[in-house]
Each structure stands twice: as C-alpha cells, then as structure tokens.
C-alpha cells in the first residue's frame, strides 16, 4: 500500500507536467483544429530560456519561470504568424506538415546553436528538500510542480470562463464565421491562444529542468508526443480533458513501470489510448457531435 | 422527438410537407439509416429494414438526395454517377488489379450506363467537368441522376427545387413525373415549394412538431384547416 502511494506521488508529478503540455495542445487544437507538433519543442525552448536566465543572468526560479513563459508566448505568436496563418484556409494536413517542419526547425536550430550536449540546471536554483511523511518520501520539487501546475490550470480556467478574452476564444472555437460577425478579432484571439498555450509549455519546460535537472534540444519530442496522447485521451479540444488526460497518462506510466515492466510502458500507454478511443471515439470528455445530414 | 406513422404505396408519388423544424429531414434520415429510430419499425417491400446500415438500405432499393447538396465535389460529373453504379460493379477486385478483358468490358458498360443517366438530366455534355463547378440547378439535377443510378425502387428527394427559378422548377416537375413512369418507382418528396408539391404529388402528408397533422389528396390538404393554421396560413392565405 505504501509503495502504491509512493508510486501515485511519482505519477502525479509526471502527470502534472504532461497535463501542462497537453493543455497547450488542446487549446490550439480547439481553436484552429491544428495538431501543433511544434508544441513539445516550444517547451524545450522554454526550458532553455529558463536555464539561461538562471545560469547566465542569475535570476531566481520564479523570475526564470516568468521570463520563460513570456518569451515562449512571443515565440508561439511568432510561429503562428509565420507558419500557420498563411495556411489557415488550406487543408489541415498541409498545416500538420508545416507543424512538423516548425518542430524540426526548433529542434535542429537549437541543436546547431547550442550543440547537442545536454545542459544541467543549476541545483542551487532550487535546492532539494525531502520530507518523510509516514514512510512516504515527498520532495519539495514534487510539491512545487504539482501546486504550480494546479495554479496554472485554475488560472487558465478562470481566463477561459470568466474573461472577455476567454469568451472570445470559446466563440472562435465554436464558430469562427459567427465570431467574426459578432465583432471578435479572430487573429487576435488566435494569437492569444498561442501565447497562453506556449507559455504553459514553457512553464512545463522549466519544471522539467528543475525536476530532472537536464535539458537538451531534442527533449521536447517524447513528452510532446505523450502530452498529445494525453490530450486525445481526454478528448482533444477540451480543457478539462487535457488535465485529466495528462494526470491519467502520468499515473498510468508510473504504474506500468512500477508493477509491470518499463519495456512495455509506451506500448501500454498507447494501448490504453486506443482502447478508450474504440469505446469512446472522441476521447473521455469528447462529445460525439455526429455529422449533420 | 418524432412520433410518426405513415405508409407509401408501390409506384406512388408522395409529398411530405411541414413548416421548418417539423422533422421532415429527420424522417428521411430514419428511412435511409442515417439515424436509428428509438422504437418502431420501418418496413420496405415487406421486409423490416429498421436499424440496417445506410449502404444496405440503399442496396435494398432506397436512394436519396440531400437538402444541402452533397455531391462528390472534387471529382468529375461522370464519376459521381459511376460511383452510384458501383454497388453492382460488373467486375471483381482481381480483374481490376490484373486489368483483364472483363474489366474493360465492365468499364465500357458502366461508362455507357452512367452517360445514359446524365443524358436524362441533360448533363451529358458536362460529363468531364468537376462536380462543384456546375451551376446550382445542374448540381441538383446531378444529385438526382446519381441517386437514380443506384437503381432504386423508392427515390427520396429532399427539397429538389430549393434554389431553382420557376422555369427550372416546372421542368423539374415534368422530369419527376417522367422518371416515375419510366423507371416505375415510388417517389417520396419533401418540398417547400407548394406549386411543385401540389402539382406532382398524388398524396400528401403534413408534418408539424414531429406529428402527422393531416393526410390526403392535394385538394383536401389545401382546404384542411389545421394545415392552413400550422403552415399554409401565411403562404396561401
């Protein structure tokens, strides 16, 4: 039982990171129906910005976090303007390929600029403290990641449900034509969506830096893919779905490693995804709208 | 949402009218298998077709058109019709891949048939054009041609005259009558255009809020009080 709870803690920390990345995926998808494969790489850029602001500028962890989020928000908007906007009226698959192109560009431009070597997050930026609670080991990093993720998610929910911007986002996501007629600036709304989504990814990137200490230019590929799976699991385009999907994915992976075998971890993750889709073809929270005839 | 009961005789030309949102298209979707009814049965030529897949229902002889035209937009007019002929494809997959003489005979035969259907709707000159490039009226006609190519015994037309001018509507009326006679099939028609419904239909059902509120000959319907209240009131009155 104790081991199970310990595994659950492991799973929640991992899940928090997946959830944050998945949120960005889902937001972008919800609004322009694009699987933004570059999202994981934006996370990587966020991790690097965080790293440099701590290691070079000597800022503290919170300043680094905010700096990374702001830079990536700008990067997200820039990418959208350059690569995705010209394709807004083209086929979705063309946009998908562009996203793959952007993803490769971010990975290999970083690799070229900063060498493929991993960087090590300075331990001093966030010293580790361990707490023993009834036989369970919890570290301040576990708590930090979990709490920060939850705070960001609540903030996001607030923005979407309660603010004008959020209303505009929901309107554009529901019906872009109608939103235009209502006087909503679609360009601006899409930009804001990319900005928020990318800054969440940047937060996740810095968290990975703190939690796992190392970052490298290709670090975004696998978590990006996993987070995408998490987003689909929850029902892509649906915010609570991404959160639940992320945590579910983290816990699932941990449990498979803990009680089964790491070797089949990825296979099981995908297997569960496929099973869920077969039972519920639009993910856990997805609404089956059906096609109008 | 729908409580509905009606029947159709062999070779009959039946009209279904009702105000917007009365559930007319839903009836069509139930018959053609797009939606499944919660309860009740749909019997066609003495066989229960309730809950069958749309393609099976089509293969059993029910074909339809759509309220908002659903052609295969990016391919040629001829191919649109040839796709409808596919369920009776005269050659198998192996012959296709190996290009045996049987394949070519089959292709020629399908080509000929498809062009015949196009001719009926005066579309033979446009065979090689892309479907979406046709003008609206011709797209409507192509849709009927396509439905007819599945060789149905019941043809369901969902507002075939929508968007047509009076002249085109009159021509369509003649065409519908002629098709029924020549192909010997039953036709079920949803229409907003009263002149078309009154002009061609032999019997009419009036639907409102998912309920049949009247049934009868065009003349009877024209005089039916409930109908006038529910629907015709503003238009005829």
């Amino acid at each position, binding site marked *: 039982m104790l*081991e199970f709870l*310990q*595994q659950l803690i*492991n*799973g929640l920390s*991992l899940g928090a990171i997946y959830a944050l990345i998945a949120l960005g995926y889902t937001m972008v998808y919800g609004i322009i129906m694009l699987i933004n494969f570059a999202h994981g790489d934006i996370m990587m850029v966020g991790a690097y910005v965080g790293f440099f602001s701590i290691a070079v500028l000597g800022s503290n962890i919170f300043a680094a976090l905010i700096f990374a989020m702001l830079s990536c928000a700008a990067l997200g908007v820039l990418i959208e*303007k*350059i*690569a995705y*906007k*010209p394709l807004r009226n083209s086929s979705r698959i063309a946009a998908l390929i562009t996203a793959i192109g952007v993803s490769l560009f971010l990975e*290999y*431009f970083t*690799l*070229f600029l900063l*060498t*493929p*070597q*991993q960087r*090590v997050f300075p*331990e001093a930026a966030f010293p*580790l403290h*361990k707490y023993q609670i009834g036989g369970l*080991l919890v*570290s301040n990093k576990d708590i930090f990641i979990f709490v920060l993720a939850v705070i960001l998610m609540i903030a996001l929910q607030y923005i979407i449900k309660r603010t004008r911007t959020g209303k505009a986002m929901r309107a554009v996501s529901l019906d872009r034509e109608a939103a235009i007629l209502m006087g909503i600036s679609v360009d601006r709304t899409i930009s804001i969506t990319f900005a928020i989504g990318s800054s969440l990814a940047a937060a996740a990137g810095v968290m*990975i830096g703190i*939690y*796992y*200490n*190392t970052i*490298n*230019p*290709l670090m975004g*590929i*696998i978590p990006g893919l996993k987070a995408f799976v998490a987003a689909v699991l929850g029902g892509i385009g649906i915010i609570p779905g991404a959160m639940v999907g992320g945590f579910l994915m983290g816990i699932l*992976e*941990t*449990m*498979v*490693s*803990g*009680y089964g*075998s*790491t*070797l089949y*971890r*990825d296979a099981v993750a995908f297997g569960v995804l496929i099973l869920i889709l077969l039972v519920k073809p639009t993910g856990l929270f997805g609404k089956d709208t059906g096609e109008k005839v | 949402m729908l409580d509905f009961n009606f029947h159709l005789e062999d070779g009959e030309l039946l009209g279904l009218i009702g105000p917007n949102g009365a559930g007319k298209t839903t009836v069509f979707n139930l018959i053609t298998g797009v939606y499944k009814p919660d309860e009740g049965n749909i019997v066609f030529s003495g066989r229960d077709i309730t809950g069958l897949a749309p393609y099976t229902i089509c293969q059993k002889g029910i074909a339809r058109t759509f309220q908002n035209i659903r052609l295969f937009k990016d391919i040629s007019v001829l191919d649109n019709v040839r796709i409808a002929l596919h369920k009776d494809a005269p050659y198998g997959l192996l012959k296709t891949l190996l290009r045996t003489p049987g394949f070519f005979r089959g292709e020629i035969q399908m080509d000929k048939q498809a062009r015949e259907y196009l001719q009926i709707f005066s579309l033979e000159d446009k065979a090689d054009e892309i479907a979406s490039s046709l003008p609206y009226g011709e797209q409507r006609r192509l849709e009927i041609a396509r439905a007819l190519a599945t060789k149905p015994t019941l043809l369901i037309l969902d507002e075939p005259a929508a968007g047509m001018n009076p002249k085109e509507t009159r021509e369509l009326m003649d065409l519908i009558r002629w098709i029924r006679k020549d192909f010997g099939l039953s036709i079920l028609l949803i229409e907003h255009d009263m002149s078309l419904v009154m002009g061609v239909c032999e019997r009419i059902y009036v639907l409102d809020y998912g309920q049949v509120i009247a049934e009868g000959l065009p003349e009877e319907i024209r005089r039916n009080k409930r109908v006038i209240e529910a629907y015709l009131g503003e238009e005829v009155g």
Partner: protein
Amino acid sequence: MRVSRKLVLLVLMLFALGVLAGCSSKQEGGDKAGGDKAAVETIPVGINVELSGDLASYGSNSRNGMVLAIEEINQAGGVLGKELKAIERDCQSKPDEAMNNSAALVGEKVIAQLGPLTSGAVAGSTPVMMQNKTPLIAPAATAENVTVEEKTGKTLDYIFRVCYLDADQAKRMAEFALNDLKVKNAVIFGSTSDDYAKGLAKYFEEAFIAGGGEIVAKEGYVNGDKDFKATLTKLRSKNPEFIYVPGYYTEVALLIKQARDLDIKVPIGGGDGWDSPDMVKVAGVEALNNTYFANHYSVEDPSPTISSFVKAYEAKYKKLPDSFAALGYDSAKILAQAINDAGEADPAKVAQALAQIKDFPGITGTMSINEKHNPVKKIVVIEYKDGKLVSR
C-alpha cells in the same frame, strides 16, 4: 495573405542566411590548421558520426575528438608530408544513413572512415568499406561481432576498433563488485532500447553468476526516459546489495540521483557510457559517492599525454572531454600512425598497418590490435569520490 507570405519568406531567408553564415564561419575556424597552406597535398579522412538523432550528443563529442586529433597531427607536420583533411558526414544515428555516407566518402577517396559510434551504424557501413577495401575505425562500437563476420566468425579485413568489448568491461565490473565490494547479490537496471546496454546487462549477469553472485531482479528503461522513480521504488523493496546500471550518462545520472533521493544507498556500477563531466553536475557530488564504472581512461589521470589532451580539448571546445571524445581522438591518432607505418596513402596498405599496431600510446590506454582487430588494453574501474574520479 500575400503580405504575410512574403513576410514568411523574408524571415526564413534571414534565418537560412544566418545559419549559413554561422556555418561557414565555423568551418573556416575548423579548417584553419589546414587552410593556410592550400597548396599542400592532403589526404582525405572520412568522419561519419551521429550529429543528429538520439545519439547526437555522443556523436558530436566523438567528432570533436577526431577533429582535434587531426588538427594536432597537421600542426605537427601531417603524415607522409601531407595534411589530413576531414570530410564530415552525419549518419543521423541510422544504419542506412551510415551506409549511404560511407559510400559517399569512399567516392571521395578517403583513406579511412572514422565512426560511427554505435555497433548498429558500424554494421551499416561495414559492407561498403569491405567492398571498397577502405578501413573503418570504430571509436566506440563495443558489441562482440563488430569486427568479425556474423556467421563465420572470420575477422573482417577492413574493420577495426579502439575500444574494448562489452563482454570484457561487464566482466571487469562483475568481478570488481564480487571481489572488491564484496557484494553477494545485485539487480540490473539498464537501458533496453539499445543493444550496447542490453549486451552489458547480459554479460554482467553471466559473469556475476559465474563468480558466485545472485541476480535478484532485472529491470529496464528506455533511452530518453527521465523518470525512474517508479521502477526504483519497486527495486528498493528487493533490498539489493548492488545495482548494475548499463546505459548512457544522460539517463544514468538522473537514475542515480533519483535512486539516492529515494534513499537507496547501495553501491551502483556501470560501464563506459557513464563517462561524462555531466555526471557530477546532474547527479550531484553526494549522490555519486559509492558509484563505480568501468572505463577507457580517467579524465583526471595526471599522466602528461592525458592531461595535455584534456587541456587542448577544453581550450578548443570549452568543456571537458568524455570517453567518446577520447576514443574519437585515439581513432584519428591511430589512423595517422598506421598511414605512417604503411608508408603510403593507400587504404588497403593502411588497413594492413592497422592490423599490425603494437603498443600504441592512446589516451584510452596503451593498446595493441589483436588478430580480431580489437585493441588489447587495460580496463580501469573508476570510483566517484566526492565528485572526484579515483582509479581503482
């Protein structure tokens, strides 16, 4: 729409220009050693390593070692009065690309090919090198069958390596654990997504059991993993006396750190994949205490050859060399010696000379090439002690 497309093109062009400019200026720097005297005749040397893909960071270190060696050789007057000229290719960590590059390099008449790193990629290159009778020196391919024919066990005439074999280093570690650390049981927790780590795990298990030890559990991870706590939590309950972690430092450092975070205090051991200055940075000084790995050399070795190599490497690349860099360096140096021994720049003759190399003083030990084209050299076991590398 049109405007934004033009903007796109502009931005992308600027990027491309920037990249090209950066690249060409870099190449200038790299070629300086040979570039000044353009008139001098050159001998082309192929470098075919992993510069992108999963293994990019190891491949680029190895490439750095090779390039440094070639520069030093040229500065010292080259070989046979000619300069060595490096032609670089990226094998993307894929066997088919490795093969493709080899064919391109052979087409450029290289004297030999250095790299790739992994045994799989070397196997991709092997047939091309054999056909064209051009030697290949693998800096770090440690699998059993790299230099011999798979079916017959016959030595491949043109394939060489400068690193020891997995079986040998795993055995060394097993014996070290049993005899020096005096442990009786062990668990193995290594990468299962590459053949290198899987081979080590297998050989370690064989040697450890042969030496009277017991393996109480075997677990695996996948390269690229960052979270090992789930499996470590599971292993903790088995109370092992020793953990053998075959794999690369990118994962191993995190794994050790997380093990110590979970209060797993037993000794942990591994292989040459561990060797990197990043180990201390990532895992931390404290976590690394009581960990040991078999290696080619120690970066803190005070011998003059090693310390001058380390200094030169640090000066050029602003970081410490790892095993891959050292092995890359050695592979280029041993090639130079073989060309000198052969007396002419002929690939086949160089291959013969390589097979005859005796007591070559490499950074990774003094080595002699044996009849299977493997180097015979000492394997050191290194202990991390308060962040310092101590040879055992």
